[in-house]
């Protein structure tokens, strides 16, 4: 049971959080202007790196707030946790 540091509540057990997939994939401003292929890429294609990965999380059973995190997909370590209004930190 990892501890995840909610930027609003502090460290809490991982069972309080829900995972939200890759971060920094904004909904297209004008979906209608996208081709089927472009839209399908937005809907269904996500990165799956080995190592640091910027992800979305929500403190579902706490403050219900979403935030971003850079987490290592091998070690599961959280390297950075940052609010939605903060830029993605430089990763090693």
């Amino acid at each position, binding site marked *: 049971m990892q*501890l995840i540091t909610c930027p609003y509540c502090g460290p809490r057990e991982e069972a309080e959080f829900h995972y939200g997939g890759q971060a920094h994939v904004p*909904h297209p401003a004008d979906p209608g202007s996208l081709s089927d292929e472009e*839209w399908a890429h937005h809907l269904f294609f996500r990165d799956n790196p080995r190592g640091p990965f910027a992800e979305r999380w929500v403190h579902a059973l706490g403050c219900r707030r979403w935030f971003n995190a850079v987490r290592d997909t091998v070690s599961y370590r959280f390297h950075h946790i940052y609010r939605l209004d903060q830029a993605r930190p430089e990763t090693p």
Partner: protein
Amino acid sequence: MNALRLPAGGRIDRSTTYEFTFNGQRLTGHPGDTLASALLAHGIHRTGTSIKLGRPRGIAAAWAEDPNGLIQIEEPFPEPMLLATTVELTDGLTARGIPGQGRLADVPDSARYDARHSHADLLVIGAGPTGLCAALTAARAGARVVLVDEQSEAGGYLLGSTDRIDGGPALDWVAAATAELAGFADVLHLQRTTAFGHFDDGFVLALERRTDHLGTPTHVLGGETAPPHKSRQRVWRIRARHVLVAAGAHERPVVFSDNDRPGIMLAGGARTYLHRYGVLAGRDVVVFTTNDSAYAAAVDLADAGARVHAVVDARAATPAAWVQKCVRRGIPVRAGRLVTGTEGVERITAVAVAGERIPCDLLLVSGGWNPAVHLFSQAGGTLRYDGGLGAFVPGEERDGVSVAGGAAGVAELGGCLADGRRAAEGALGGLGFVPVDSPSPVAEAHVDGQPSLVLWRVADGDQRTQFVDLQRDATVADIACAIGAGMRTVEHVKRYTTIGTAHDQGKTSGVLASGIAAELLGRPVGELGTTTFRPPYTPVAFAALAGRDRGSLFDPERTTAVHAWHVARGAVWEDVGQWKRPRYYPLPGEDMEAAVLRECAAVRGGVGILDGSTLGKIDVQGPDAAEFLNRLYTNMIATLKVGSVRYGVMCGADGMVIDDGTVLRLAGDRFLVYTTTGGAAAVLEWMEEWLQTEWPDLRVYLTSVTEQWATFPVVGPRSRDVIGTVFPDVDVSNAAFPFMTWRDTVLGSNRSGHDASTPRSARGGRPAPDQDVPVRLARVSFSGELAYEVNVDSWYARAVWERLVAAGERHGITPYGTETMHVLRAEKAYPIVGQDTDGTVTPHDLGMSWAVSKKKPFFVGKRSFHRADNQRADRKQLVALLPVDRNLFLPEGSQVIEGPSVPEPPIPMLGHVTSSYRSAALERTFALALVKAGRTRIGETVHVPVAGALVPVEVAEPVVFDPEGARRDG
């Protein structure tokens, strides 16, 4: 009676005698005994028979590392697969040896099991010399300390030794240390508590055994008894900023031919039986060792009266000081010799040493010590092979975890004491505590000796009797076979041979298997490594893991404000998520089918009432609330007038339906959104996700009010009369109160509910009893009938429900449950999201294009409707299926195929039945189904396999009852 019990010494209470039964034999022991020590006191080594080969097996160690000695307890309560070496003796205990498997009780376990959380700066695992030193160091510095130890008392290795600390017996120091720890308010010291799992970020699970050692009330002769309310076992969930593993080391045997006979035991184990329990494990002893530590066993047993016939030391260079001690006691030392075999059936009778036969009844073995690195490794710590120790020791440091003492490969007592202090000080520095100056305990100088020899096995003899894992009956021959079959890693060898997979998880066999496999492969053991250590360290009963989370406490049960009324009415329940909902209300003699047909007919013929309070309700407020909902629902919400209601469908970005429900506009900037019962939490999270991650500029606030509002649909042609009676201030005519509108009203004062003296604060600011209760009525229908949904503060729900029922009495108002609700909605083809949909269904597939706005430039999912896949002509569409046989019931989930006969596989599938019921109104069965190009098939006959036969069904318009909607307005 206890022929091998010494007259004095040890940690047992000879003034009290316990009676117990083992393998049918009545025996005696004392408080402080384990079952194993009590058996050995009677000269009983053999506990059972091995699982595969049926070979006699005995007690081979003194604690959890014993690979033999599995027993079944029958009294006081049946429990399988315990170790004789770890079961504390109680009066009246009845047990028997088992070959690997036992039996579970066939009656429910009435004991309590619970769990507690604990938070610590430093968790110390193991209360031996290392752990005690570490805990003292941390406690004195002011840290919050948890100290857990699996034995009945602190001391660890010292309990089975004659070591001295600070010039006195080591156990005096242990007593002083535990007394000092007890004086710290922030120290939690738990004995009989096994840390069995070490997880991320300092999270450790430990099992505390709280009552078994107290015996059952009828058997206790005196002293403490277990109060019936006290939990038998407790799982501690410990979260520590730093974890110090001070779990000591396990002695390792050497593998040789016929090394499994009863009477063959680890040398340290025999020493523990002697010093802790006052038991001589044998009278005629041979010691076989590769290191100095076993000499102490030879010397101590000789001093206690045993005849030690030889110390067989595999090393050519023997430790001079120890040899001298042996010579003084007349113990011959055979240097550079090996044990090559044994004799005896029920018990060892002789040892073969290089052609020489030495009679004995006890063979003590020591192949060195394996640091107990399990809890370090479980948390992801890597191990490295130490060639000097012939063992795997902790490798690189890990944040928040350290290992000290025997578990880190430290061999001598003095070293352990110092290492415990060092490790604690290291951890304290990182935690911001300053260690205080205090004298370190001083151990008696140890006897200088010779380096250990790494010896995994003695090759002479038959590999098939050279046991590596005694519990699994796995031998050197099995490892050779695995390697012959191509296994090249220990993980593969483990799985091929099953070595290390028994109750002991390879505490003695794991490293041996690595060593022997490395030898056979001709590779260095350090390169081959060891198998991964996984929780639990020792077996944990499922009852303990379940704790109190069983039965009705397994998952929270949510009940509505009217629950007690449903109970009194004899409702049969359906679990919907965590909610308990009445499924139907059977009258005497009715089964579900009869009750549901009656309820359906009553609703369509008169009036019924449903408890719909479980529907999810979300209060959406803010200047941008209308815009926000407009973007989330497929249909137009922004144009909804205050006072009106709209049915809405919500889709994912992929265009698939994820929820549906009604939306009430309460004000220009306020909406009340109803979700499905099961979708409430997910819809709130979905809304929050869009609001926070995509549209943070929208000023909208979301609040769950599911439990604040009770919701009672009053449904049927007579519902207008009922509502008009209970709410006389409301004009219930269709003109004044049309479909898809809502009205606020009040319920007059003359009502029950609560005491007039209840202060306003305790009423949550609600009206006093002499004031009116606000009620919201909505003209929505989930059945096609005239219907009014009554919404009221849950506080008054029961009173309002009872008024509605009373007012409906003259119309025969019928409470109905979810089953009837489902039949009525299915007759109208109102889909249940998650039953008639499965995440691949669009609103168009459901025939609800009317609920998809063509005007809105954007809503979530809109773009996806234009994807090629969503334009396919053969998409599955919701249709009704009418079996040609009007009485035939199609099971939900049935496949729909073309027919009329079954072709060769693969059989093209047209779709499947999503909902199926008997209709009282149609006097026939019907079903909803998702069928490929279903709408173009209306009128056609397709087939459904039911109970082995293929039955014809007609594809029909999804709305099978009142398709023109004539009943909606009464």
